[in-house]
C-alpha cells in the first residue's frame, strides 16, 4: 500500500489550503505522490490521495488520466521524453528517438531492463527553436544530435 511521507502529506495539506477550490489541489498532490512513488501513479496512490484529500477516487482518476505528465505505468529512473512534433520532426527528432531506442535496446514507452531509462515520444515541449530536444526527468537538453543525446544519457549516473 502506498503511503505519502510526512513531508509529502504536509505538502498536500498545504496545497489543499492554497487554492480557492479544493479540487485544484489534485494536480499538485498527484505531482507530490508521483515523485514519492518512483515516477508513476498506481491505483494505490489514487486511493490514498482520495482518503487524504477527501475527494472521490473517480475525480482524481479523471484528472490523472487526462494529463500526460502523470505516468500510468512504471518508468525508468530517467524518463527520457523526446519531442516529436512538427518543428522537432523537421530537425530529425523522430530519428533521434529511434536512435536512442536502438542504442538502449528498448522500444518506445518501455523501460530498459536495468530500469534506468524509459524513452517516450511526446508532443510539443515548447522548445521548437532549439530542436531536436529531449527532456530527462525535469531537465531540458536542447540542440541535440543522436550522438550528443546518447552521450548525455551515458553521462547520467
Amino acid at each position, binding site marked *: 500500500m502506498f503511503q505519502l511521507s510526512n513531508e509529502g502529506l504536509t505538502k498536500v495539506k498545504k496545497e489543499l489550503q*492554497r*487554492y*480557492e*477550490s*479544493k*479540487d*485544484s*489541489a*489534485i*494536480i*499538485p498532490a*498527484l*505531482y507530490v505522490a508521483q515523485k514519492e512513488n518512483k515516477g508513476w501513479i498506481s491505483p494505490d496512490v489514487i486511493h490514498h490521495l482520495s482518503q487524504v484529500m477527501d475527494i472521490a477516487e473517480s*475525480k482524481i482518476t*479523471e*484528472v490523472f488520466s*487526462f*494529463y*500526460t*505528465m*502523470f505516468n500510468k505505468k512504471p518508468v525508468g529512473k530517467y524518463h527520457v521524453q523526446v519531442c*516529436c*512534433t*512538427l*518543428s522537432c*520532426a*523537421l*530537425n530529425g527528432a*523522430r530519428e533521434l528517438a*529511434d536512435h536512442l531506442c536502438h542504442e538502449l535496446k528498448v522500444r518506445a514507452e518501455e523501460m530498459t531492463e536495468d530500469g534506468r531509462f524509459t524513452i517516450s515520444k511526446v*508532443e*510539443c*515541449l*515548447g*522548445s*521548437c*527553436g*532549439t*530542436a531536436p530536444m529531449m*527532456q530527462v526527468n*525535469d*531537465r*531540458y537538453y536542447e540542440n541535440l544530435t543522436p550522438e550528443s543525446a546518447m552521450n548525455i544519457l551515458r553521462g547520467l549516473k
Partner: protein
Amino acid sequence: METKLLSEHYHQDDFQNLAGYKKQGGYQVLAKALKMTSQQIIDEVKASGLRGRGGAGFPTGTKWSFLPKNNEPRYLLCNADEGEPGTFKDRLMMERAPHQLIEGMIISAFAIQSAKSYVYIRGEYNEPIRIVEKALREAYEAGFLGKNILGSGFNHEMDIYAGAGAYICGEETGMISSLEGLKGQPKLKPPFPAVQGYLRKPTIVNNVETLAAVVPIIKDGAAAYKKFGTEKSPGTKLFSLSGNVVRPGNYEVPLGYPLKDLIYKLGGGMKPGKKLKAVIPGGSSAPVLNAIEAERATMDYECLAQMGSMLGSGAVIVLDDSNCMVDMLGNLTHFYHHESCGQCTPCREGTGWLNKIVSSIMEGRGRLQDIDLLVKVADNMKGRTICALSDAAALPVLSFVQKFRDEFEYFVREGRSKVRGISYAQMHH
C-alpha cells in the same frame, strides 16, 4: 532589424532578478499606473489597439470591458500554457523577464480591479515555473504584491498553477477547468469567462505576451505604441521562428513585418542547398502557406487572414523542400489526435479519423477517394465544437491537401513519397 520593445534587456542575465529589473526602470510603470484610475488604463489599452497575442487576436481592451460592472470578485489569469507546436516565446519571456510579466499583470489586475490572479504555466516548463516562483517571492517582499501596493490602497495576490501536460489547457476555458482541478476540458460558451469563469466568477484570461505588453503601453502611452506595426495591428510581437532555418529563435518585430525578411534576414535563410517549400505562419493550427504566398506575406492579422491563414501565436515554422508534406501532415494529425480532449464528438472522433486516413495513405493502404474524404471530414469538423481545437485540427488538413495535393496523390498511387522517394516503412523503422 528587430524592434525590441519587450525583449530589449533579455540578453542581460540579471534581468531575471528584481534588482536587475529595477535597474532598467522596472516597476516604475506600476507606480505610474497606480496613480491613474482603472478606467484610464483600460482606455489606454483600448486606444493602443493591443490584440491578444495568444492566438485569437482579440482586442485586449475590449475583452476587459466585457466584465460586469459590479463589485463581484474577479480573477485575472495569465495563460502561460504554451502548447502550440512551434511556439516558445512565453517560455523565453518567463525565463528572461519574469518581473516584466508580473508588473504587467499587476497593472492589468488594477485595471480590471481584480484582487487575485494566477499564472497558469504548463507543467513541462520546470525552469520557468521555478523562475516565476522566485520572482513572485521577490515581488511580495518588495511590496509590489500583497496588501496596499505602493501605498495606493490596491490589494493583489498572485499565485502560480502548474499544468500537467495538455495542449487543450491553452484554450481559456480549458485552462479555467484545469485550474479548478478538473480535466482541462473547455466549457460551454455562453456564459463567457468574462461573465462566469473561474469558480463561476468573472475572469479575464490573457496571454503572457499580452500582459507584458501592457507595461510599455502604460509607460509611453498608447500613441507611442501605435507607432509600431500597422494601422489595424499595432505594436510589436515576438515571433518564434523554427523549422528548417539557419538561426531559429525568438525575434521581436513590429507587426506587418515581411515574412521573407523574418526568414531570410533574421532567421539566416534556408540551410545550404535547400529551398523554401512552405511556411506555417501562426503555430501548427494555422493553414500552411506555400513558397509563393510566403514571399508576399506580411506578419499581421489582416494580411494573413486575407491569405486564408492566421497569425495565431506567431510561431513561424519553416519547411524546406526536403520534407514530405504527407509525412508532416501525419505528424500534425497525430498531434491533434493525441491532444483532443474527447469532449465533443466531431473532434474526438474526427481527429482520430483524420490521423487514421493519413496513416493509411502513408502505409500504402490509401485510396484516391481518401484524399477527398480528408477534406470532407475536416470540413465537417470545422465550427462544430465547443472550442477551436477541432478547427485547429481541420485547417492544416484542408490547406495541406489543397496546396500539396499532388504529393498526396503520388503517395496513394506509388506508395512512396514524391519528395523523398521512399515509403513510410523506410522513413520510420
